[in-house]
């Protein structure tokens, strides 16, 4: 009568500290250049070596420019951070996929596509979107830099066991509605703190029917509901996705692993601390109107009124709309936009590029829109070219940039200027997230594509209908 979360958690307990946290064994630690340097520095100060260097994988992604990656990074501070990771990986004997290595990309895109993230694992990284890897049936969560150092030093972390929550999404998603919309819908219902303290298991027909790319998008956004992480029990979709990848076990190792992975499910009588059920048919293409990802609505709906907010939340709500330049109660359809960003660990995978291309095919990018299309990895970039999507996108007036986190958090030079509106497939619409003063509207790749060709906030189903006619 255990949940899958408990099964994976329990099988990784080294010890439970009395009146304290659990010492949890970690199978995989990922390091990027932003949240690791102080951990490596701490290791040096203490005179420690990495306890299990073979289980740690490093790659730069946040600072990497999305053009001319074969040349030195122009920003000297970014360059130092990227170079520091390469040096640290070499000094501590860790695997490093540097810039221009064909295995480089956003850490949460690369882990799954290389077969590094596997069912039943515990996976951590100094990055809140580590929840992404839960799509493979792993317990994966973001940690701070002190905790990164703990894992380097001992391959363990001290953590309080989170509570368990199951979110069931039953039924079938409508046309033009994606995993991104599902996640934005959940956030709009739960708020950005509704799942704080919990680990989520996503289940139900609509979740089962998602592709692996869709599952990665859904699990990626678990943190935006406040959850420690989110995962989906592994099934045939999972096994088909991971088979044959670079680090996936092969031969006898595969058979043994598969037999174990097939046991990874919550028992029928498992009891969750909280269980919620939603209907997929109720989900529309979603957009956000405010400055946190929980401030979302159907693309054709109106922003809520101030009166509908509780007293304590009104100051934040007003500040948020002021920042965005929107009025309470107004609709956003037909509003002019300035930028479109396709990419990030949320929506930088091949399926996202296919979706974007399906809308822009035979159309042209609107003149008022600057579009940044950034693959999540070199592997995604190669797939785009193999499938000829690059031609479709180029004919429609879009260029493909080089992989990295890019405009999701604007640590490289892909910054949305102050006051400009960006329809973005990334994960956060916080104030200044895409550059100081930038205004972000989160959406799916389909909605972003529709906005990119019309230049205004557009329901992607409108364009699909016109295509069908």
């Amino acid at each position, binding site marked *: 009568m255990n949940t899958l979360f408990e099964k994976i958690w329990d099988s990784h307990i080294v010890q439970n500290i009395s009146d304290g946290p659990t010492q949890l064994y970690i199978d995989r630690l990922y390091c990027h250049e932003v949240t690791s340097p102080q951990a490596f520095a701490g290791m040096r100060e203490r005179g420690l070596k990495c306890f299990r260097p073979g289980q740690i994988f490093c790659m730069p992604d946040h600072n990497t420019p999305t053009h001319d990656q074969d040349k030195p990074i122009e920003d000297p501070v970014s360059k130092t951070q990227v170079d520091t990771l390469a040096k640290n990986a070499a000094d501590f004997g860790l695997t490093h996929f540097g810039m221009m290595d064909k295995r480089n990309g956003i850490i949460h895109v690369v882990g799954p596509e290389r077969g590094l993230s596997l069912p*039943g694992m515990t996976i951590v990284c100094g*990055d809140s979107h580590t929840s992404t890897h839960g799509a493979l049936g792993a317990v994966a969560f973001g940690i701070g830099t002190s905790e990164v150092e*703990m894992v380097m030093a001992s391959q363990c972390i001290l953590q309080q066991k989170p509570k368990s929550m199951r979110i069931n999404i039953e039924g079938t998603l409508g046309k033009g509605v994606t995993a991104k919309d599902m996640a934005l819908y959940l956030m709009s219902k739960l708020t950005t*703190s509704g799942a704080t303290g919990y680990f989520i298991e996503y289940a139900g027909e609509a979740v089962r029917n998602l592709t692996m790319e869709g599952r990665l998008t859904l699990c990626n956004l678990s943190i935006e509901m406040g959850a420690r992480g989110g995962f989906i029990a592994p099934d045939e979709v999972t096994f088909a996705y991971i088979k044959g990848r670079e680090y996936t076990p092969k031969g006898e190792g595969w058979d043994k692993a598969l037999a174990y992975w097939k046991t990874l499910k919550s028992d029928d009588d498992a009891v969750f601390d909280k269980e919620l059920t939603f209907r997929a048919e109720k989900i529309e293409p979603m957009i956000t109107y405010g400055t946190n990802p929980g401030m979302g609505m159907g693309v054709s709906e109106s922003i809520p009124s101030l009166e509908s907010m509780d007293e304590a939340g009104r*100051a934040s709500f007003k500040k948020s709309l002021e920042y965005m330049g929107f009025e309470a109660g107004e609709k956003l359809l037909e509003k002019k936009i300035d930028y479109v960003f396709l990419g990030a660990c949320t929506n930088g995978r091949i399926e996202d590029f296919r979706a974007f291309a399906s809308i822009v095919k035979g159309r042209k990018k609107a003149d008022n829109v600057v579009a940044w299309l950034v693959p999540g990895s070199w592997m995604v970039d190669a797939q785009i070219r193999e499938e000829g999507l690059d031609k479709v996108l180029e004919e429609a007036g879009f260029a493909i940039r080089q992989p990295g986190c890019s405009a999701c*958090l604007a640590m490289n030079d892909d910054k949305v200027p102050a006051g400009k509106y960006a329809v973005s497939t990334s994960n956060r619409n916080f104030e200044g997230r895409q550059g100081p003063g930038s205004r972000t509207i989160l959406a799916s790749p389909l909605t972003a594509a529709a906005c990119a060709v019309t230049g205004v906030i557009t329901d992607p189903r409108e364009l699909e209908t016109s295509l069908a006619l």
Partner: protein
Amino acid sequence: MKQKFNIIQSTCIPLPLENVDTDQIIPARFLKATTRDEKFFGDNLFRDWRYNADGSLNKDFVLNNPLYKGEILVAGKNFGSGSSREHAAWAIAGYGFRVVISCFFADIHKNNELNNFVLPVVVSEEFLSELFASINENPNTEVKVDLPNQTVTNLSTGRSEHFDINGYKKHCLMNGLDDIDFLVGNKEKIAAYEMAHRQNG
């Protein structure tokens, strides 16, 4: 060894906003440092709220209001949501805060504060709204945070509450110990675990 934590009594800086995310606490462009320079992060705490776009001080922001000072930050619900960046905790510590009081913290940020000897104190919504009212009425309102007894007291009204912290972390904070000391001290247990459990190659 970090600064040991015992009893803190101080005036407060109020930030009565909800969902203050770590991108606001320290914007991404300040994350490029490769050292843990708390002064640098503290100087840039709430950077885009503290300063206008032209670099001038935003006089409306509470950190720029000379009425408010102290070692305790009092914040609205869901403080520290979003990015896992520990730089946010370094900025809070670097500015000189030793306690953050709210009715609700985001998980990762809460751990990051604890790992930097900043104490996150979770209070009831009633306690929080009364405390905001007290500070609003009298900016010299003091709060006493007593870690050994796990109590937090609004000294203007006398209202006091118990707060939760596990015994292990309380011991660490009071004695200036961190988790790495603990973990490195039990490597044999870890190796024994590996022998018994490795399923994932």
